[in-house]
């Protein structure tokens, strides 16, 4: 097996057994975007607790399995409708940005593509620019995917201070991948059952668009999802006839290329795939 990095995993929702299984299949690092808890939180102090969990407890839990845990901070798009709460949460985020495992602002974006969600998204982008942070973006689900991705891409493209190579636009699918790549952003393929892409479709898109600026991730969370989605996809890549080097570029080197733009990220691309440690 080849070592891999899961760029999107909501590990606070997963068991320690999942870390064990991920370690056994070659996972060396995860990055965890701030997420929706399944209900709308009512105060900024709830987010302060969550950010503490993400930056203190979770890295310790992962380290026991020799997995490096990094995180992204924000108020998730599903809660972006509440502008008052968003302002309060945005005000506390800077006190966490210097923590050693924080890579940037994310996953920000849109959910039902409302006016308030877009305003909250823009506020987060401004915060990221102000603090020179990488940006990780969630694009909406199902019928909202195309419209929301278009709104996000147009918003970012109209801001001359945005360097697209420092932005990951996640959850792309067949009808949104082209617009994301053509604007110079990184694109994420999410191996999530039912509502995102299967390994087969992710590999199709990698074959059609090439591997440059494309990553795969599990986005495992509290819903039906698979913490071992990346090794499963690697198996499918091999079955499809792709080389270990091709797989290594997608599951290890590409996440390194994007994430190492943060000086806190300690892994670098490797010429040859490393076998499971």
């Amino acid at each position, binding site marked *: 097996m080849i070592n891999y990095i899961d760029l999107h995993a909501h590990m606070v929702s997963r068991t320690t057994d999942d870390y064990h299984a991920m370690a056994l299949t070659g996972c060396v690092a995860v990055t965890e975007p701030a997420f929706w808890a399944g209900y709308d939180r009512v105060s900024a102090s709830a987010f302060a607790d969550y950010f503490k969990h993400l930056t203190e407890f979770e890295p310790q839990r992962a380290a026991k399995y020799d997995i490096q845990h990094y995180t992204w901070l924000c108020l998730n798009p599903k809660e972006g409708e509440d502008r008052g709460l968003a302002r309060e949460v945005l005000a506390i985020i800077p006190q966490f940005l210097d923590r050693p495992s924080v890579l940037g602002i994310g996953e920000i974006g849109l959910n*039902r593509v409302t006016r308030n969600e877009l305003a909250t998204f823009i506020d987060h982008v401004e915060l990221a620019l102000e603090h020179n942070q990488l940006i990780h973006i969630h694009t909406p689900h199902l019928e909202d995917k195309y419209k929301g991705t278009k709104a996000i891409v147009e918003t970012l493209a109209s801001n001359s201070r945005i360097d697209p190579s420092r932005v990951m636009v996640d959850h792309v699918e067949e009808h949104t991948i082209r617009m994301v790549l053509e604007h110079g952003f990184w694109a994420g393929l999410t191996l999530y059952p039912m509502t995102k892409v299967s390994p087969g479709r992710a590999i199709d898109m990698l074959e059609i668009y090439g591997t440059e600026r494309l990553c795969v991730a599990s986005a495992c969370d509290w819903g039906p999802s698979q913490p071992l989605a990346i090794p499963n996809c690697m198996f499918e890549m091999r079955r499809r006839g792709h080389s270990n080097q091709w797989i290594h570029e997608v599951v290890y080197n590409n996440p390194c290329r994007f994430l190492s733009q943060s000086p806190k990220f300690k892994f670098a691309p490797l010429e040859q795939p490393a076998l499971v440690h």
Partner: protein
Amino acid sequence: MQIEGSCPRTQRELIELEFIEHRTKILDIAAFLDRFDRSVEHNANDDFRIKAFREALKALNSHEFGRVERIQMLLSDMSSELRVERDGQSAYGAAKESEQ
């Protein structure tokens, strides 16, 4: 014929590897539509999701490359206006007619 972005497997190999899996999927779709017809109450033949589903099946039958992208677009909200306010947390899988 080889197009840019080819799959490394030959058509013969793809059939050997994946035909049974996709045969199963197409039968599941057929069974879902039969189940829908057998339903105890016929109260959603004009539901926006089932209408979009039937349009997607027509697109599936195309002989032209790009079926997934075209079906994705058939199942998308193609309006450009932002919603005035959130109407819930979850998407439906197809656009309501008022949003197309």
